[in-house]
């Protein structure tokens, strides 16, 4: 654990990618393999399930540090990270040798069924004996969410350097559900057994937003496939050995959430992997994203739910056919095979995402304008000759989203941020006018520059009307243009409307709050 904590410190201490990769590579080479495997698991967001609630941790920490609970809570809001707050407040520098990473995590796993008193005893003991940094890492493992500025891609690159296995092959081996409790470093990364891996998905290939200024003048439209960008949930469907598996982009197995796809095992041949988008589809119409969320939100998928919100897979890529990995084939070829395959099985709950071929970019632009009519988010632009890549890579797949809708709203509340935004007011709530009052309609966190964030932080601190824990109500004085993707009626929101991906597009210094939009204006956008 000491070695892992030192790694975290090094990773934290630099913002240079090369240094991060070097530190990780060094760690993977030097650490015992059992520890290295757990490190890979943690850095790819596979953590043991939480044995205690954070509420208990907070209470115990306040007790141990002899601080009033309110002061502990305030400290937490200001630090913005529970693991770090506890690490800072328990002012002990243990010198005893800490357990290995593997032992520590296994102890945490073993904690789960124990009594609260036993849990408390164990955790307090660790807090008191670990050093500051180890205590922080220990808390991070307990609470999860190991965000330390290391992407999975970066980790895979370092791992590749350490074990001398190609990065894309490793990325694939790291996909899906595995646990250091049931596999070993060698088994998972060096000598995987294909028999164990029938459920294993391929790494998803991701698109970049198109660079409008240069792309269209540089590229020949005939080299590109144009498709609509479906507004659903990205998923990979795997059919192998008579079973099927459905993976989300977050590498969650979501097979059980979509029982209507169970019939596919009879309808499509084994050894097939399809990349596509899950979308609600009823009475020959594509539904909206909120419907899909309703389905994802339910624990059990009832017959009624399936009937109310039926789901289909909108397929756009074929990654495996007859057990052969097709990813190195050009898109053109993969698309033909997908087209042929789906034509053979017309009754399957799978639709083919239509591919358009245009002769000039103006036609593409006009197709993009049909996005809301076709219920898409815009267009995808994919190179015909390109292989299916790993992760986000520039130049092969582009997304060209529809222009967002926007509205001018008033800043009413602000909350302190987390992580990099610790101790700055960066999480904002915006309101619109309704019968002379300001009604909350959205929260937004992104879109401002660092300089604007600092200015706004100052404003919040100097214009606080009221405080509610980490939240401050501010003088309604500033107007911002809020952009968003989708809009739908909602009974859960006070305003009666839910917007998707709200973000700040501009600080409207030129507008007074009286000039902000009204809820009525927003409703107009519902159409």
């Amino acid at each position, binding site marked *: 654990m000491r070695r892992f904590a030192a790694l975290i410190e090094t990773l934290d*201490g630099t913002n240079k990618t090369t240094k991060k990769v070097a530190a990780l590579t060094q760690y993977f080479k030097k650490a015992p393999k059992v520890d290295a495997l757990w490190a890979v698991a943690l850095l790819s967001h596979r953590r043991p399930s939480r044995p205690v609630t954070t509420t208990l941790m907070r209470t115990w920490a306040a007790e141990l540090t002899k*601080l009033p609970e309110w002061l502990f809570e305030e400290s937490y809001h200001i630090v*913005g990270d529970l693991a770090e707050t506890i690490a*800072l*407040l328990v*002012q002990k520098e243990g010198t005893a040798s800490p357990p290995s990473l593997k032992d520590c995590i296994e102890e945490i796993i073993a904690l789960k069924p124990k009594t609260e008193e036993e849990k408390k005893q164990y955790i307090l003991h660790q807090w008191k004996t670990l050093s500051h940094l180890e205590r922080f890492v220990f808390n991070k493992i307990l609470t999860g969410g190991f965000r330390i500025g290391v992407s999975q891609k970066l980790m895979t690159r370092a791992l590749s350097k350490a074990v001398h296995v190609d990065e894309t092959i490793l990325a694939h081996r790291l996909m899906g559900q595995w646990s250091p409790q049931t596999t070993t470093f060698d088994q998972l990364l060096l000598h995987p057994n294909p028999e164990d891996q029938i459920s294993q998905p391929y790494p998803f290939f991701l698109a970049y937003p198109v660079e409008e200024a240069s792309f269209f003048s540089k590229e020949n439209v005939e080299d590109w496939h144009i498709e609509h960008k479906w507004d659903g949930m990205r998923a990979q469907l795997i059919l192998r050995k008579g079973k099927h598996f459905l993976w989300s982009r977050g590498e969650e197995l979501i097979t059980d959430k979509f029982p209507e796809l169970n019939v596919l095992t009879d309808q499509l041949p084994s050894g097939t992997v399809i990349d596509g988008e899950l979308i609600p589809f009823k009475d020959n119409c594509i539904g909206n994203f909120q419907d899909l969320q309703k389905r994802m939100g339910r624990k059990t998928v009832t017959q009624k739910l399936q009937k109310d919100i039926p789901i289909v897979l909108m397929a756009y890529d074929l990654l495996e056919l007859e057990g052969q990995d097709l990813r190195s084939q050009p898109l053109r070829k993969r698309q033909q095979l997908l087209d042929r395959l789906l034509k053979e099985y017309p009754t399957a709950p799978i639709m083919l995402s239509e591919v358009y071929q245009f002769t000039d970019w103006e036609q593409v632009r006009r197709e993009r304008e049909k996005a809301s009519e076709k219920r898409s988010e815009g267009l995808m632009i994919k190179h015909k000759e390109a292989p299916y890549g790993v992760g986000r890579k520039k130049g092969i797949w582009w997304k060209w989203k529809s222009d967002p809708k926007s509205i001018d709203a008033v800043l009413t509340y602000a909350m302190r941020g*987390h992580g*990099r935004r610790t101790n700055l007011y960066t999480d904002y709530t915006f309101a619109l006018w309704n019968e002379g009052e300001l009604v909350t309609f959205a929260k937004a966190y992104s879109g401002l520059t660092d300089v604007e964030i*600092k200015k706004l*932080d100052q404003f919040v601190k100097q214009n606080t009307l009221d405080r509610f824990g980490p939240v401050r109500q501010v003088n309604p004085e500033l107007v911002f243009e809020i952009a968003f993707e989708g809009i739908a009626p909602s009974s859960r929101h006070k305003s009666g409307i839910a917007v998707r991906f709200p973000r700040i597009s501009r600080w409207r210094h030129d507008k007074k709050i009286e000039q902000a939009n009204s809820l009525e204006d927003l409703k107009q956008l519902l159409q």
Partner: protein
Amino acid sequence: MPLLEFTSKGIYCKQADVYLDPWRGVDKALISHGHSDHARWGSKRYITHHTNVPILQHRLGKVVVTGKKYKETFRINGVQFSFHPAGHVPGSSQIRAEYKGEVWVFTGDYKTQLDGISTPYEPVHCHTFITESTFGLPVFRWEDPTKIHQQINQWWAANQAEQTCSLLMGYSLGKVQRLLKHLDPSIGKIYTHGATEQMTEVLRPFIDFPKTELITPATSKKVLEGNLVLAPPAVMGSAWMKKLGRVSTGYASGWIAFRGARRRRAVDRAFVLSDHADWEGLLSAIKATGCENVITTHGYTELFAQYLNEHGWNARTQKTQYASETEEILSAE
């Protein structure tokens, strides 16, 4: 009537008709130390500790300023005043005011740690203690500064070995000199940014510092390789910084005690080194004064005052215009 009151111009002693660290121009101002949020322009007459005289003249131009020694008492209309070491930066003083047996102390800014350049903090007995609380939260606790200075020298030596220039940033009055004092000149040469050089020059008559050399347009990247450059934080990412060639960036501040703040700064190395008292420092200072009343002026004022109230003091908060809550005002110096 309280001996010191809070007015729109600053902390005011009506009996003596003087202000303490006023934020508007007044007739007579007692100044705790040279930072720009405490020593402001526009007053007719300034009284401060000796060391601050050249600092004020450097910062505010031609001002009328009188210097006093630590603990030297002087009377203004029956009120006895004196300056006492605050340990914050060279010259920094707590201001003691006594009238008819009642004693008030205004701390300005202070720290209880030793920094090697400022006269160490001395507790002063009083009835009412007006204290800063910049880091008045229990999450702030400073490590032994000798350890931090060692880390800085190790970082420099490692950069030296890679022939990379070390750019070490800290604010121009106090922090940079504290850093300079503890640099190991056997590792290499120490260069300075103009702002840093000027302020260090002002303090050289009082303190023995290692030799420094000002960076000019004629300074080549080549000569900087492996050496160290001291500069204010504002140079981060500037054109000036780009001219230094290959650099490893280091920043010393108390504000980067949190990971998030460190990441936001985006420097290669963050050294947690503060010229303000940490939580324990504040509490021990308050205890040592034997005071009954505490007024917190800047920083995490409300939380700190609430804690003090729960622990037997009569504490309250007063709004002032001293830099608080945010590091940016300080680093803008």
